[in-house]
């Protein structure tokens, strides 16, 4: 019964982990390159836990690798936010900040989940994500309250990505918890951070939807999965 909710968690961490890893070797400074790669690594590690448990409970003999590499785009249940392209460093950090802020709220709540295995994964992940949120928050503030150029880029990144925030909090029976209850905590951290970053929250609450239900992903998901899955699909069960 929890399989769909576990897949949602694992698919979001997987797709974002893959996206962030695209920066490896390309970030603007060595420290940022390492930080992005570490964040991606944590997310992929969390994916193994979420999808591993999903596969176990589904009982069809699929492990985390099978779920990650052998499903098609229409079977993915990640948030639309995480499949959006990296574009510039400002967009990447804004996407990370919005995701981390939601993610930490989710994990803190799931840590209290009556299902012991779900709670264990959430407790483990929350420790890592606390560092992710601290870093992306600091970065949004530094770049927002930075130069004219960086401020303008962060504001346009916010305008670009804010329409993907609403989907994180829609109520849906397949989620492991009622996501709508997490919105006040998310908003409090968002408002405090945007204030310090001298950024303005967009007025429209319009929300793109269809990622976590699988109804309508953006065109970007197929491309990122093609890259991620090409090796295991071309050489099934390859070992090295």
């Amino acid at each position, binding site marked *: 019964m929890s399989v769909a909710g576990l897949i949602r968690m694992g698919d979001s961490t997987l797709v974002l982990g893959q996206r962030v890893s695209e920066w490896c070797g390309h970030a603007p400074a060595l420290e940022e390159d*390492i930080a992005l790669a570490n964040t991606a*690594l944590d997310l992929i590690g*969390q994916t193994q836990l979420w999808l591993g448990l999903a596969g176990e409970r589904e009982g069809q003999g699929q492990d985390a690798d099978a779920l990650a590499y052998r499903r098609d785009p229409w079977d993915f249940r990640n948030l639309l936010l995480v499949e959006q392209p990296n574009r510039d460093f400002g967009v990447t950090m804004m996407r990370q900040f919005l995701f981390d802020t939601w993610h930490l709220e989710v994990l803190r709540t799931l840590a209290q989940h009556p299902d*012991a295995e779900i709670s264990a994964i959430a407790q*483990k992940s929350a420790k*890592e994500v606390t560092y992710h949120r601290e870093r992306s928050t600091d970065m949004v503030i530094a770049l927002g309250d930075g130069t004219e150029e960086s401020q303008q880029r962060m504001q346009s990144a916010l305008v670009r990505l804010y329409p993907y925030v609403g989907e994180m909090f829609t109520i849906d029976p397949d989620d492991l918890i009622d996501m709508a209850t997490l919105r006040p905590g998310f908003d409090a951290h968002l408002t405090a951070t945007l204030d310090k970053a001298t950024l303005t929250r967009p007025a429209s609450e319009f929300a793109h939807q269809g990622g976590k239900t699988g109804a309508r992903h953006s065109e970007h998901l197929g491309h990122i999965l093609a890259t991620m899955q090409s090796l295991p699909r071309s050489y099934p069960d390859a070992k090295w």
Partner: protein
Amino acid sequence: MVATHPLIDDVWAWLADVPDPEIPAISLVDLGIIRDVQWLDDTLEVTVTPTYSGCPATSIINFEIEAALRAKGIQNLSLKRQISPPWTTDWMSDAGRAKLEAYGIAPPQPAGGPAHCPRCQSKAVEKISQFGSTPCKAQWRCTDCLEPFDYFKCI
């Protein structure tokens, strides 16, 4: 013929000689990731908890444990992964903390940053990045001796 099991204390002593693959100055036992060792009939079960969920050293650590115990004649071995309760740097031994410091890595502190520079002991230190050369470390710098150094993050 009656086979006798090696004593659990001996197994712990063997594991205390297995270095962490990323930070060889400390052992797996110092790091606090070996949570339990027990005999289940004829099988030795070693319970290991990962440091960070995506740490690439995890599979090498399992390999090293297996190699070390096989070398001591353990035939039936089972490695159990345990993620709850999650690993915390509080489980690092005092010996491990001292070895880290001597190796040039500032040990974890509840305050969230290094107590002092592991090279010159100055308290004038600043953070460069929350992330470092491995998932468990951050990059800091001493503003007195000007040397950058690794800090083992507190989690």
